[in-house]
């Protein structure tokens, strides 16, 4: 749940990039970090192994500026995708406001995508959360690869809820900001929808 600090008039929203190992979650965050102007972003923190595989998480804060007198900030996190890091993944999901599921489009990675999605549902459940209650989008990454599965196949296997999805090539930034913008809007809308009218 978004943290509202009434005293310092700040709102912090947590968005988590989830998905199987090597699907491009860190690549998304790194691209955002490289392209955003310095006044809008904080430090990119990576807790990674020597081989640059995410060990715990990557973290990037983005400032949206003042919205109705509240300094509004998006905190972007990635989880480590490798199967054996589940304890870390679970921790990162704590307090999540929105999720980007980054799927690897390669046909031979379909099972890993499905497994990771199911693992996400299980981890959310440990916090008493259901995916229906959390805004999320899907990003089909690596669309440029020759062995990329057709979108219809990916959709059928991964997008049973019919949420917004984006085709991406995160290494060159294709689809990266579109994905981020959509999830940011969905989270704000979700928070507003819970407000009494």
């Amino acid at each position, binding site marked *: 749940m978004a943290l509202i600090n009434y005293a310092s008039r700040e709102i912090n929203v947590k968005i988590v990039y989830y998905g199987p190992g090597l699907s491009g979650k860190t690549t998304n965050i790194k691209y955002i970090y490289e392209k955003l102007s310095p006044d809008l972003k904080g430090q990119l923190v990576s807790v990674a192994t020597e081989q640059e595989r995410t060990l715990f998480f990557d973290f990037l804060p983005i400032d949206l500026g003042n919205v109705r007198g509240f300094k509004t900030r998006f905190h972007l996190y990635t989880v480590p995708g490798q199967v054996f890091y589940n304890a*870390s993944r679970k921790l990162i999901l704590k307090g999540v406001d929105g999720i980007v599921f980054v799927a690897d489009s390669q046909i031979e990675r379909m099972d890993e995508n499905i497994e990771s999605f199911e693992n996400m549902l299980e981890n959310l459940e440990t916090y008493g959360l259901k995916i229906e209650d959390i805004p999320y989008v899907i990003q089909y990454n690596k669309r440029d690869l020759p062995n990329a599965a057709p979108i219809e196949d990916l959709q059928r296997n991964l997008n049973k809820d019919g949420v917004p999805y984006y085709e991406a090539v995160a290494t060159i930034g294709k689809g990266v900001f579109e994905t981020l913008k959509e999830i940011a809007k969905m989270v704000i809308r979700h928070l507003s929808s819970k407000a009494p009218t």
Partner: protein
Amino acid sequence: MSEYKYIEESFKKVETILKKLKETSNSNAVLLIDKAGQLITSIGDISGLDIVSFATLSAADFGATSQLAELIGEKNFSSLYHQGEKNSLFISLVANRVILAVLFDSKTTLGLVKVRTKHASQELEHVLDELFEKLKVTPPKEVFDKSFLKEAEEELDKLFGP
């Protein structure tokens, strides 16, 4: 803003406790962080410190250690101590809700920091319980109304293009 008056009052009490902790423990800075890794407030010299990253990593540190605790049959480790060459860090959990981090150097000792932190934690727990009780009776005015939504969407369009 009068509608947040009672929150501001509690907040001032919290800051007073943190200030006292910093002074009596002779530490350099005290930070209060929520369990999801977001800074609530800080006292002391934090110039040159990336506090957003600091808050995130402290919470992650605490979260990871709690899991370690469970693995050895403990419910939680109530505090963590990281010793550096010059600067050290003492982290503890308050009221099972928030993380209290104390940054200190050789001007003081771990023992003193521990004792003072324990006192401060008890005081904080009292203030936080009081605040949460009040929040139940009088929830704060909703921030995320229609006009917030509209303005936030405009900012996002400005930032990432329409």
